[in-house]
């Protein structure tokens, strides 16, 4: 065959290229509808994109890639096809054999570990048998059952006698030959494209790429030029469809498929739905009990702090549980130490303090641990009260134990209530009778005082702070106690068994002591 011109490819070269591209395109058509991997460029199985009408061909041609124009068939991206065709580009005389393998688990594997859309790229081309294009860890730990459900064979049989349209010695006939070959190859590929969608394996493919459910099977593929023939048993289950060969001047292109027609049992196997579900009330969500950690917190007294607190999400819940340092909390949270979740909240370092929180006041929780303090705000009257209690503390009986320190703290708080008669404080303490009991038994009980108002809690906290910082009534023994108290409440953890009754007793003692001192001072003046 004479080449037509120097620049144009010769007829044999054209035919060679047509044959090579036919092999590549056939592989692409097959794997595109059997390989569950979908690239980001692809559209869905029910693609809506349409080819342009002939009237608008110029504007739409740009959407087609160069390889789409081969055989006038634009296909979805299929990396598996591109990876496997290089071998046959070098030698198109080797048959392309594509095995579509059904892989099923045999119990003991976690179906959630399967990823039907992952990694089903076939092995590289080669003559030696290779693994079935599926990583071993992608289908769980269980054993797998593999079965070839389709075997496609695409090959160019070289040999004389083909009744293609080309005739030797004629320039026009050689051109016709390649054109005829191209036309017939194009028709064959159209048929192939329709056929792959009519075979049973296509339904499995569609089930796999469906994102609605996790299937207990997967599809793999193997591309090679040599395979072992089917056994008799396997062949008995197979049906065959042979496409009409495309004759060329030197051979013919053959395409056939052996497929398993009975795959209904596979599709009927149970699957796991993975449809996403919204959980509106997840743990830590504002919708799920926004005041869960503040059961007694009144709605009207919400502060910016608590509003921010309510908006915390589950991630912040975890950070709460990790931190155990003392965290400043607003006065409005003072009584929630009984709630275990409250402790988690308290460990969060990110709480913004409201503007009305002037200082930090610490109250104890379960025995006055050093980290179990919370802050409450101070009031204008507190300095005055603090001074008076400082005087009272000078006459306090000495006690070096931590219990006395604790008693001084708690009793000073209660003393404040019992001794000064301030209506505001009195009112707070009067209303908080239950709170007195609950303060004494800090482990496991709630703090109903908060239910009666956060301001009262802040007053109590202020008193406690004042008593902690006040100098001892007795210089010799109480100074050390105060200094130790001023050291950051390190000894607060030592006495955990004080009750409110003890605190009241101490308060009465201080009250009596104070009265005595006042009388003495009056008498001395007098």
């Amino acid at each position: 065959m004479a080449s037509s011109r120097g620049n144009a490819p010769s007829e044999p070269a054209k035919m060679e290229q047509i044959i090579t591209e036919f092999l590549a395109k056939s592989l692409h058509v097959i794997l595109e509808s059997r390989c569950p991997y979908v690239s980001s460029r692809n559209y869905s199985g029910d693609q809506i994109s349409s080819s342009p009408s002939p009237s608008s061909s110029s504007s739409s041609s740009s959407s087609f890639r160069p390889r789409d124009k081969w055989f006038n068939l634009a296909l979805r991206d299929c990396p598996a096809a591109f990876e496997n065709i290089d071998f046959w580009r070098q030698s198109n005389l080797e048959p392309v054999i594509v095995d579509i393998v059904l892989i099923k688990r045999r119990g003991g594997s976690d179906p959630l570990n399967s990823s039907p859309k992952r990694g089903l790229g076939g092995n590289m081309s080669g003559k030696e048998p290779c693994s079935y294009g599926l990583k071993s860890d992608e289908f769980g730990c269980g054993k797998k059952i593999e079965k070839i459900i389709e075997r496609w064979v695409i090959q160019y049989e070289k040999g004389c006698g083909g009744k293609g349209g080309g005739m030797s010695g004629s320039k026009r006939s050689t051109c016709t030959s390649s054109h005829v070959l191209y036309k017939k190859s194009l028709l064959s590929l159209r048929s192939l494209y329709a056929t792959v969608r009519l075979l049973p394996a296509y339904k499995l493919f569609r089930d796999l790429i469906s994102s609605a459910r996790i299937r207990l099977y997967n599809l793999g593929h193997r591309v090679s030029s040599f395979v072992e023939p089917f056994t008799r048993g396997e062949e008995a289950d197979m049906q065959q469809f042979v496409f009409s060969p495309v004759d060329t001047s030197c051979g013919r292109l053959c395409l056939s498929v052996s497929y398993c027609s009975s795959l209904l049992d596979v599709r009927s196997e149970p699957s796991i739905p993975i449809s996403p579900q919204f959980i509106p009330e997840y743990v830590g969500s504002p919708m799920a009990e926004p005041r869960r950690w503040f059961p007694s917190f009144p709605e009207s007294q919400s502060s910016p702090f608590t509003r921010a607190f309510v908006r915390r999400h589950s991630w912040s819940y975890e950070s709460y549980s990790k931190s155990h340092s003392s965290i400043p909390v607003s006065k409005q949270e003072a009584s929630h130490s009984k709630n275990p979740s409250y402790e988690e909240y308290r460990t969060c370092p990110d709480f913004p303090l409201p503007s009305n929180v002037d200082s930090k006041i610490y109250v104890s929780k379960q025995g006055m641990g050093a980290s179990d303090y919370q802050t409450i705000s101070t009031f204008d009257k507190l300095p005055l009260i603090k001074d008076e209690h400082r005087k009272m503390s000078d006459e306090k009986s000495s006690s070096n134990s931590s219990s006395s320190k604790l008693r001084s703290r708690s009793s000073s708080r209660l003393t404040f209530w019992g001794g000064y008669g301030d209506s505001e404080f009195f009112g707070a303490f009067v209303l908080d009778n239950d709170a007195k009991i609950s303060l004494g038994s800090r482990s496991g009980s709630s703090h109903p005082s908060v239910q009666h108002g956060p301001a009262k809690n802040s007053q109590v906290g202020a008193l406690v702070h004042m008593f902690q910082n006040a100098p001892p009534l007795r210089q010799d023994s109480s100074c050390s106690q105060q200094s130790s108290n001023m050291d950051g409440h390190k000894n607060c953890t030592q006495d955990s068994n004080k009750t409110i009754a003890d605190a009241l007793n101490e308060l009465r003692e201080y009250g009596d002591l104070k009265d005595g001192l006042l009388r003495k001072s009056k008498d001395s003046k007098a």
Partner: protein
Amino acid sequence: MNCEVFQLKELEVEHFEIREVLRCILHTVLFHRALGLVRPKDVDLELFEITYVQCGDMEVERKIDEKIDQFIDRVEKHPNKKNQICLSFYEVKNKQATWFTNRVERLYWEQWYINLNVAHHPKGHSGKSHNSKIVVDPGDTAAEARTARRTALEASLRDVLFQIIRFVNDKKDHVPPIPNLEGVSFPYEIIISRFCIWDGNVQEDAPNWASYNAQLTCNDHERTLLLLYVFVQELK
């Protein structure tokens, strides 16, 4: 040039199944004849577990839907008759104008006959048999019968699609050279026959019927004359 005629297997369909079945068959044939650059469009049937392929040309889709509407109207007007749709591909040849012919002549090189036997159902009762002479079985028996019929129709439709694929593969020489166009590359025509001119055994007699059918799909003037003739015959 020989005109290849392909008679597809007759299908027994119900009224509500006509559209899906015809769409599937017509688009499958046209996909095999839209030899220009196309981006195939996979379409899943709603009534059957079959995926067929469209060439993606919107004009083709519109024309097919239009013809299907006409077919459905024809079926409703003429129930209890076998109905046929003929999809023809032709080439346009210039010819010297005469008294009864245009300058343009169509040479048909391929014809596909789609044969449907539509069970008669009045409008609004799709899916159920409304023949008053037949007692509808109550309960599960009727549902099982419908399921069996649906399964059989799906298998038959799949057979028809494979039939198309085999025809396309077996006969390739008669296809004209592919023009450099996108989408549908050959002009085509869809004709709905109002009466049955197929007796089911015409594969061997196809050339005669083909020529007769080719006459039916000739130019407008001749078509008008022939329709008048047929109308007169029917009146007789």
